[in-house]
């Protein structure tokens, strides 16, 4: 695969004695949506959390292998983790806005990274909310508490919050699992929009969602990457019997 944004090489992750990711090699393209699917416990979330080194926050975790972002090592001892986590935004399963105003939720990251203040910060907030397809709905109530937003709006706020620190990569862990169909449709449209400017990786249990939003699909099973290719190909003609059985609902 030419034009690689994230290059995962021989990645292994353990939690204590449990070997969760087993020798995964994967090249992820920029400005595309890559979906990671597989049965519960197969290592999907651990795989994407390895990209921004979030697994290290879990006591007893151990990682070997390498991940390169734009050919820069993620696991080098010189890596600035603070900068890494600015570069790699994360959106979680359940919307998790801060108990602050809509404005403050977005401004929090840029302030922390000392990126802007005053009018410049206002511009970042507006741009990020527009990027999160939320601006039109909240522009007249930016001082409202974020908890007053609906679940779907809260999730788009979290996406906008991730955009505010100008990342290159956005990781999404089941971003629509807590949303109703209408809110899910909005977030899915947003994901496609984001792919124009960002590298998006989405973990999902929803196969149809993977088929709808992604350009590439990876299928994991018991910590191994079993199948990886263009979404159209994987959903029309999977190469592995395991992937065929999983996506046709014959197991998992």
């Amino acid at each position: 695969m030419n034009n690689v944004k994230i290059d995962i090489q021989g990645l292994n992750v353990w939690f204590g004695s449990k070997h969760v990711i087993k020798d995964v090699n994967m090249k992820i393209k920029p400005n595309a949506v890559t979906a990671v699917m597989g049965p519960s416990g197969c290592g999907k979330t651990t795989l994407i959390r390895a990209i921004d080194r979030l697994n290290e926050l879990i006591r007893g975790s151990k990682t070997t292998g390498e991940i390169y972002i734009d050919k820069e090592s993620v696991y080098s001892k010189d890596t600035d983790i603070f900068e890494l986590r600015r570069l790699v935004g994360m959106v979680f399963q359940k919307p998790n806005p801060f108990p602050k105003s809509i404005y403050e939720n977005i401004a929090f990251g840029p302030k922390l990274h000392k990126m802007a203040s005053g009018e410049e910060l206002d511009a970042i907030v507006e741009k990020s909310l527009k990027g999160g397809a939320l601006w039109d709905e909240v522009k007249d109530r930016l001082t409202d508490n974020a908890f007053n937003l609906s679940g779907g709006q809260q999730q788009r706020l979290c996406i906008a919050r991730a955009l505010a620190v100008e990342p290159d990569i956005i990781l999404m862990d089941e971003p629509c699992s807590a949303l109703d169909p209408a809110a899910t449709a909005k977030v899915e449209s947003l994901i496609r929009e984001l792919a124009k400017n960002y590298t998006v990786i989405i973990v999902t249990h929803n196969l149809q969602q993977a088929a709808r939003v992604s350009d590439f699909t990876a299928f994991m099973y018991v910590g191994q990457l079993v199948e990886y290719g263009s979404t159209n190909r994987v959903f029309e003609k999977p190469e592995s019997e395991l992937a065929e059985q999983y996506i046709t609902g014959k197991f998992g």
Partner: protein
Amino acid sequence: MTRLLDVGLEQLTMMVYKSGEVAESAINMSIRGFMNGKDVTEAVRELSDIIGAMTVEIENKAFELIVKYQPVASDLRIINSYMKIAYDFERYGRYAWDISFTHKKLADLDECAVSLDLMPKLIEKVSEMVSKSVEALREHDAELAKTLADTEIEVDELYFACLDQLSKARGRSKCVTCNLLVSRYLERIADHTTYVGEAIVYIATGEKISLR
């Protein structure tokens, strides 16, 4: 545990198999009528209408399964291919009726079939292809389906040889016209058997190939 989709797929499969059986019967009936100088137009028309109605039912069932279960991979390939195959079987039935109708309308029923030397051979080859297409479907047998390509070449050669003979025929212009049209209908049936074959290969392997 049986998937809900499996129940629907089983029903769809039975519908397509049945359509194939009726289509094969329609072709055999029309060919026998043609060879034996019998008017079977109405009986073939009934079968053709039945196949047409079954095609609509198959499409409806396929849409129902797509809407309800959003199938992917081999499930999706089967549903998509069955819709195509149902249409090809509808064409089998329609050409069968065309043969009977043309024969009745244009020809002296008991004389035209034997007025073209190559016609029995053409009929034999096309009948073989129809049977093979229905059998390959039942077994999802890609290898058997692929053999349709060779017979298709033979049918094309026979068809062009028929045209050559007919262009040189003298007298009995109704028979010439009848044989011209019937040989054309047979050649088109052979084409549709290859479409069925291509769909079977796609179901079985995911490969999109041409058998023509």
